[in-house]
């Protein structure tokens, strides 16, 4: 598989950007800088990046509570994201969504989702729009192994299949639904094989290998664009942090966690491109440095941005509605 040099650099830059963002968010959260709670994507970067490499701003994705990586892979501005996590007025959702509902429809990012299994019908709807209007747009539904057990996921796979919608179902199997092992919650030997029930291709992919994801997603997305219907990809990877930041992660042993790093997607990428002479070490290091600066700049911007005025609570509920009926009565 030939990947143009520029795209190789993009894959690396996006993965590193996600990792740096998440590691920094972990620190900021621990320092009490961020309200609410956060679910971090570190370790799973190859999936979002390998898939979104095939998408443009006109394509759509729906995401999960672990959505920062999908946002970054889809091109959402990290400064506006970081600011959103602070709850500031200049955040990408004006401080109204936060980590769990972060979205940017201008980038085709139809939202992280606080509801496990909330996204698949929405992805079908985005695919239905493309099909109805006769465009070649594609919608991707990212979901965890936990959401693989939600009825909406199954209903949506069936709907996408009977209507031949341009939707790709990307399961990120990170081995645990919160603290529950996927081998417990899933009756099937793998999630990909469930595709057979909906007469669509199901592909099991190493989600720590961005090249493998890139190739499988490329085929699935091309198939969707050709009007041949949906595909289910199951990408196995590891989440480095807990389910949420602050999770004591008692369900995993230190040995298991250490083993994850042996298959780190970023290190695997570096080794692959360096050993094949596709990119130089200095180029990769330069990306690392630029990303670091970018994240620090985003944090500075977020820190110095203002909070929204309290009355901002009352806006954006509707396009039109009598505001006095939204406000307190007294």
């Amino acid at each position: 598989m030939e990947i143009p040099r520029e795209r190789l650099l993009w894959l690396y830059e996006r993965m590193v950007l996600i990792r740096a963002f998440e590691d920094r968010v972990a620190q900021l959260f621990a320092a009490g800088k961020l309200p609410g709670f956060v679910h971090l994507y570190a370790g799973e970067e190859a999936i979002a990046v390998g898939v979104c490499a095939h998408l443009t701003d006109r394509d759509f994705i729906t995401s999960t509570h672990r959505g920062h990586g999908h946002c970054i892979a889809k091109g959402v501005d990290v400064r506006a994201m970081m600011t959103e996590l602070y709850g500031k007025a200049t955040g990408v959702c004006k401080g109204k969504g936060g980590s769990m509902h972060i979205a940017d429809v201008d980038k085709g990012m139809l939202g992280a989702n606080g509801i496990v299994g909330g996204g698949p019908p929405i992805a079908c709807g985005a695919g239905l729009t493309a099909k109805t209007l006769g465009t070649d747009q594609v919608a991707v539904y990212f979901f965890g192994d936990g959401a693989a057990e939600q009825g909406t996921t199954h209903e949506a796979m069936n709907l996408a299949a009977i209507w031949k919608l341009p939707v790709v179902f990307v399961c990120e199997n990170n081995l645990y639904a919160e603290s529950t092992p996927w081998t417990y919650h899933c009756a099937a030997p793998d999630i990909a094989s469930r595709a057979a029930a909906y007469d669509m291709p199901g592909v099991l992919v190493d989600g720590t290998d961005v090249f493998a994801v890139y190739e499988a997603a490329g085929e699935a997305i091309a198939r969707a664009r050709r009007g041949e219907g949906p595909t289910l990809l199951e990408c196995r990877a590891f989440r480095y942090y807990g389910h949420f930041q602050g999770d004591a992660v008692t369900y995993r042993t230190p040995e298991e966690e250490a083993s994850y790093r042996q298959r780190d997607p970023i290190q695997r990428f570096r080794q692959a491109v360096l050993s094949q002479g596709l990119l130089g070490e200095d180029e990769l290091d330069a990306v690392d440095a630029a990303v670091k600066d970018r994240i620090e700049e985003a944090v500075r911007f977020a820190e110095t941005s203002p909070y929204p005025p309290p009355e901002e609570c009352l806006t954006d509920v509707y396009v039109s509605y009598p505001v006095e009926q939204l406000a307190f009565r007294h």
Partner: protein
Amino acid sequence: MVVATRVLSYRQAINEALRLEMRRDPTVILMGEDVAGGATVEHVEQEGAWGGPLGVTKSLVSEFGRRRVLDTPISEAAFIGAAVGAAVTGLRPVAELMFVDFFGVCMDQIFNQGAKLRYMFGGKAKVPMVIRTMIGAGFGAAGQHSGCHYSVFAHMPGLKAVAPATPYDAKGLLIAAIRDDDPVLFFEHKMLYDTTGEVPEGDYVVPIGKADVKREGNDVTIVAISRMVHVALEAAARLAADGIDAEVVDLRSLSPLDEETVLRSLAKTRRLVVVDEDNPRCSIAADIAALAVDKGFDSLDAPVKLVTAPHTPVPFSPPLEQYYVPSPERVVAAVRELL
């Protein structure tokens, strides 16, 4: 300009609103269980088999085709959610939730997704979708096919909710709902489908959020919703025979609420009865009573009376169902208590 009118049924008025909007705007699509009916069955593929279980969407598929009149699997979460996704990305879907009682299997897509997306996204998204759904007792359909439940939706920020009582209002409100940029729940009372009334030809809009005084009067205000407007009018006719002059306000829209019209009527009559077929706890009827107490207290010469369904599911047996639904007799009795 003289606009021609003819007598249409409530069912025909809804069908006409859908047809006109689908002609006007190619992004309007219909989706739901059996909205055409008989998908892929050769001899009905072009004209549809059902047009909905009560024929409300009949013959739309023959004009607009299966790509715009979409029969769905019985997967309410998937297709109501698909309507949300389609609305966010550029269509104006009209999804049919066959009976409102089915909201239990798709509520997440309605209230966590459709209702909240715009807000959570900081105003960047809009969700111009309509959910048409059937309400009401009277068919002997019992516990899971007879509720009203619109109060549940009126409670939720991000949703609008309308419940027309006449063919004229049904057509104008549905056109308004389809053109609205927010998600609108459109409640159709199953016992009204065969009722008839004058309906203008061509398109017109009944604005969402505006109540309508269906009968003017000076002695008492009766606020009613959907089928209960007709119950209230019947009660008003009986009261008139005894020299009591009731004003009947058809709420039409539950969210937003036309507070001004209710309060203006109350200021005139100084007495208020609310007639509502929904269950009474935390309901639109209770909300109107709270409005009267909160903003119309000085107008009240008597307690507010609520004539509602009891706090039970809808029963099956005909005498029980009849007991459940507010009757003109109960409305008359409530008014008499105030005078």
